[in-house]
Every structure is written in C-alpha cells, then in structure tokens.
C-alpha cells in the first residue's frame, strides 16, 4: 500500500503510481516485462523502456485518461485503449507504436496545437513541448478558431502564475491539489470547450483556499502554472507569429 509514494523515482515518470501487487508478465513491443499487478500498461511500458507519450498522466496522481495521446494497441482488444487507465494482465501483448497510433496521436496533438499559443512553441521545454516534438506535429489544419488565448493571466500568487492560454486542461493540478496536498482548492470550472482551471469559487489564486504548496505547479505539464522565479524581469505573453 506504500508503493504509491515509495516507488517514485526522480529520473523516471512512470505515468501512474507504482503498485505492490503480485508480479505480472506481459510483452510490450516485443519486450517482456514484469510489473506488480494493479500497474498500468503505461507504467509497464516505462519499465520496459518503451515509454508511451503522455500528457495528463504523472506518477504522483492516479490515472485520469483525458489526454488521449497514450493510446496503445492490445492484441485481442478492440480499439485503442489508453495505456494509463488500462491495467496489465498476464500474457498481454501491447504495441506502443504503429502508423495508426501515430495517426491518432497526431490528430490529438493537432487539436492541442489549435488552442496553444504558437509563439510559445519554439523554445519551450515543458513536458508538453517535448511531447509535441516527440510526436512530430508542428502545425494543425484547423485554421483560426476559438481559443483561450485572451483569458487573463492570474499572477496574484507571489510565487507562481497561471496562464490559461497555455493550459491544456489535463487536470493534473486539480488532482495534485486533491490527492497529493489534500486541500481541494482547485477545480475545473465550466463544461466542454469552456472548461478551465479555477481556484475555489473562480477566485484569484491568492484569495482562494490554495495553500501554495506548489503541487499544482509541479504537476503542470505545459508551464501554464509556473514559478515566477524562472522568469528574468517579469512574465510577458509571447506574440503569436501568425498574428
């Protein structure tokens, strides 16, 4: 029962929390790997050094299954299960790369890019930026549409800021606040395209129940929540090259 916290490693993000069940052996891209029962396919893939691309998953919080870039193919199963929410089974045969998977992942990344400030793409180093590069999508075919780029930056907290323009609504911050910190200060407000991260009753972070533990900042994969100390001379939004 301690595996969730004690199995963490600093140099690897298993994607889902470690487990402590009986050993289960499966095959991932031809590599045989043994992990505890209750582990996700994503964790097993990381163990097999076949890490699946991911955005909403991180091993500090439970699997969520929202980003849809970690889809894999599993022999004998229909469709493309998300590797983060699919648990390992003995003898399972998993493929993490195929032209079809690449097509779907690219399709999902295109959607992300259609709502991400283009000016922020070139020199970024967040998990999101790295995933964009890994999947190899550089642009999208959706043209100019609705975005969240006009939502104001919340810089009320002295230590970190929240730029909704860069938020990919993966809920990692919300889950970190609940599962890691146990404060439940964050939520997703609104539905559908309007879904956005909100502190307490959609208040500025500083005025909310947030206790500034930084778990949300740590969890954020796209530098939407980011330490102010990383910016020399204040935070300025990037100009979009298209604009």
């Amino acid at each position, binding site marked *: 029962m301690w595996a969730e916290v004690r199995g963490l490693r600093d140099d690897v993000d298993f994607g889902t929390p470690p487990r402590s069940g009986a050993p289960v052996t499966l095959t991932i891209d031809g590599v045989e790997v043994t992990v505890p029962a209750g582990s996700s396919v994503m964790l097993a893939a990381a163990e097999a050094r076949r890490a699946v691309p991911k955005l909403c998953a991180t091993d500090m919080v439970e699997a969520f299954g929202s980003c849809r870039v970690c889809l894999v193919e599993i022999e004998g199963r229909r*469709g493309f299960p998300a590797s983060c929410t699919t648990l390992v089974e003995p003898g399972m045969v998993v493929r993490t790369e195929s032209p079809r998977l690449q097509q*779907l992942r690219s399709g999902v990344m295109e959607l992300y890019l259609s709502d991400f400030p283009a000016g922020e793409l070139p020199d970024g180093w967040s998990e999101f930026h790295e995933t964009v590069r890994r999947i190899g999508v550089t642009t999208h*075919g*959706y043209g100019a549409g609705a975005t969240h780029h006009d939502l104001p930056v919340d810089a009320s907290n002295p230590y970190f800021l929240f730029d909704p323009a860069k938020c990919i609504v993966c809920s990692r911050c919300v889950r970190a606040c609940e599962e890691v910190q146990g404060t439940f200060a964050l939520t997703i407000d609104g539905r*559908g395209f309007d879904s956005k991260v909100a502190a307490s009753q959609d208040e500025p972070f500083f005025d909310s129940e947030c206790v500034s533990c930084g778990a949300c900042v740590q969890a954020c994969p796209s530098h939407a929540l980011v330490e102010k100390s990383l910016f020399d001379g204040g935070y300025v939004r990037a100009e979009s090259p298209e604009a």
Partner: protein
Amino acid sequence: MSVTVFVPRDSFAMALGADRVAQAIAVEAAARGLAVRVVRNGSRGMAWLEPFVEVQTPAGRTGYGPVSVRDVESLFAAGFLQGGAHPLAHGAVDAMPWLARQERLTYARVGVTDPLSLDDYLAHDGFRGLRRALGMAPGAVVEEVVASGLRGRGGAAFPTGIKWRTVAGAEAPRKYIACNADEGDSGTYSDRMIMEGDPYVLIEGMAIAGYAVGATYGYIYTRSEYPLAIATLEEAIRRARAAGWLGADIQGSGVSFDLEVRMGAGAYICGEETAMLESLEGKRGQIRPKPPLPALKGLFGMPTVVNNVISLATVPIILDRGGAFYAEFGMGRSRGTLPIQLAGNLRTPGLVEKAFGVTLRELVEDWGGGTASGRPVRAVQVGGPLGAYFDASLLDLPLDYEAFAKEQGIVGHGGIVVFDDTVDMAEQARYAMEFCAIESCGKCTPCRIGSTRGRELIERIIRGEDVAASHAQLLALCDVMEHASLCALGGMAPLPVLSALRFFPGDFGLAGDREVAHVG
C-alpha cells in the same frame, strides 16, 4: 353512483392544461349535480390527443381528446359521462388502433391506473414480480433476467442479466442499484412517462434488482427538469415504504431494500453511467475511465448495478411472466419490446411500445401519421442527438440493434425525430457538433476541443470556405473523435455528422453548390 373520469397528470397533459380541464369537469359536474370522480392517471402516450380524457362506462373506457376547458361544457351536454358522441370522441380506448397495435408490457399500466394508488397498482398485477422473486434464490432471479434477453434500454444495449451476474458475483460490504433517469436525448420521454405514470413498477424493478445482486440501497438519478416525476416518485417511495414494499423487511421476507431520488443539474453528460456515479457522489459530473467497471467498482467504490429506468421497469413483468415469455417478443438478438418515442415533424407523435422488428416506416407512417407539415419525410434521426441521420431509403430498416449498427446507426434510447424536406442537413450536422461542444464534460481532448473545431469546420463548409480542405480535416477529426475519445459522447458525435455527409452531401455543397430545399 358516481362516474369515474380520468384526466392525465402526465407532463404532456399538464403542459396542455390538464389541471384546468380536470377542475372544469369537477365544477361543471357539481353545477349539474352529477356525481363525478376525477382520477388523475398517467398518459396513454398519444401526445397529439392530450389532454386525453377518459370516462369509465359500463362498456369500458371511452376517450375524448384533445380536451380544452372550453370543450367541457359541450362534453357534458353530449353526455360524455355515458360515452356520448362528440367531435372529440375516439370511442373505446382499448380499441383505438394506435394503442391496440402496440405490445404494451412495460407500459401496461401507464395511462390506465392512478400512478400513486397502491391499490390500483396491486389490482393491475403490481408487485407480482417482486413476490415471485422473493420466493426464488437470488441467483435464479438473475438467470431469469438473463433468459429474458433484456438489454440495457439506456442506449448501450448491454445484456442486463449479465451485468447483474457481475455485481452478484462481486464480494463487497455494500452494493448499490443506481437507476439512470437522466433522460436527456432529444425527443425522448419514456423514462419520464414511467416515473410519472407508473412509479411503483420502477420501485419494484429496483427492489428485485437489489434482491438479485445483494444490494440494499438504490438511487434514482433524474433531472431537475422533471419536477413532476420527482414529486411522484418521492410520494410513491413514501407510500411503498409505509406499506412495507421498501425498507428493512419487505413484506416479512427478511429482505431489505430502500432507495431515494437524487436530482442532477441538467448536464447531458451525467446520463453517461460513470459521470452519473460521480455526480451521485457529489462530484463534478465527469467521465471515469473503465475499467474498473461500475459493476465491480461503482458508486462510492462499491459494486453497482447501473440500469436505465426502462430496463428496471421491465424487470417486474419478466419476473412475473418469466424470462421466456419476454424473450418471445422481438427479433434476432434484440428481444422484448422497446418504448419508441416519436417526435419531430409528425402528425400523430407519441409513445409506442412495440416488439423489436417493427420498421421505421411503420413507426413514422402508421403511428406517426406522416409529417405534420404534409411534406415528404427527408430524414429521421434515431437514438438521440448522437444518433445517425437516415434518409428515406432506410425507412424499411427494422428496429434491431444489429441492423442499425450495420448502417452505422444506433437504436439508443428509442427516440425518433423526423424531418421533412425543408431540413438543412449541414445545419443539423453543425448542430450535432455544437451539442457535443456544449454538453462535453471537458475531460478528454478529442471531445473538449474537437467538438468546437468540428462546428467551426462545418460552418466553414456551409460558408463555402476551403470546402475540400475543411471536409478532409473534418473527416480526420471525426476519426480522432470516434477512436480516441474517452466516452461515447465524443466517440459518437461524429455519427450524425458522417451520416449527414453520407446521405446528404449536397447540403454541404460537396457535390457542387449547396442544395437545400427552401419552402417558397
């Protein structure tokens, strides 16, 4: 001796003034010194005839409708209390072809009885299923449901008995029955009609489910837009409990089961079973990934039967008459009957309970009476806002899960919306994406962003901008939404879009200019 007059208290009838009609009848009767007992029944489902007033005559029930307050005096004058002739008269209700040609199993009592009268319920075969179930081993009850071939009527069509088996087999300190009454599909109202018109059948079905799988508590999750259904259910639960049909020791059997009604806040997504469970737990209605199946880890992490109202309301008759009896109805792997809800551009819409196998044409033409506008039928959408649009060439398709799947369509919750030839199918496709954009829970990316992008692309196509490129991008988007979404909302939103593109490409200007029939 007083005459019994039935005036429905169903939302259909209420919306059309049934309360005032009932009051007018009472007032008129008093003025004339006639002894009249007004019973507020459920609706027969003939929506175009509401308020549909029935009179109990020695020859049976005679119907009049639609009745407005200003018709009341003339009805009395025509001697309607004795079944007298009147322009609004429809004769013996049971003989009305619209009703007589149905196979009412689940809806046998709806419109017939006083929904809140336990005596009425018992007099019309109520609680016979529960009584029989309590005399059987729980496992045998599950098997009876398996044998009936009943499949989930909420839309997913998963075999109900198999789901029960899973829950029954799970070891847990507590189990739950969660009734999904968050009826949100466009043009559907069958759940509401049961809850308003025969609440005890749902209570009985849930109690049987509880006994069968070992659950002792149930929730009915319904929507705030159904205030009458909620009030009716709550009163029915209170009366059932007082009469020992719910609670610690049901009818001295030692079996305990109780339930309560919970109200959602109008999110379509909460009709999805995992989002409903989240909402029931007091959380934001968001999709949970499966596995774990709710049958193993559902409400509050406990094994939970999640069934639609109609599935549960059908259980009593299965237990009463036997699984084999129920399975005799239907075709192929679609057994039993389905309450079909006819809506949209139809002359005589309403609720038709009919065995699977009935064709769309029979439903649209024989029951629906063709379009209300009198123009040709151009498209039908079956299964709610995420169902496919079919053109008239598919009207002979039988209502059958597998037959529909073969045409990339769904039966869903049994709602049918009909359009005449003035409909703009590109606009309908745009609306499908917009609906998804509004109702998406916002969790998974394909649905959260994709639905908005889909709407934008279709709008671009409608405006004639970059049609070829936008069309290609739309197809790619539909592929991503269908195969990469977390739940059926995002996964099925492409269905109406792709079917509209398939059957009505002209409306999108894909075969030249947009060709939309305009009424001149």
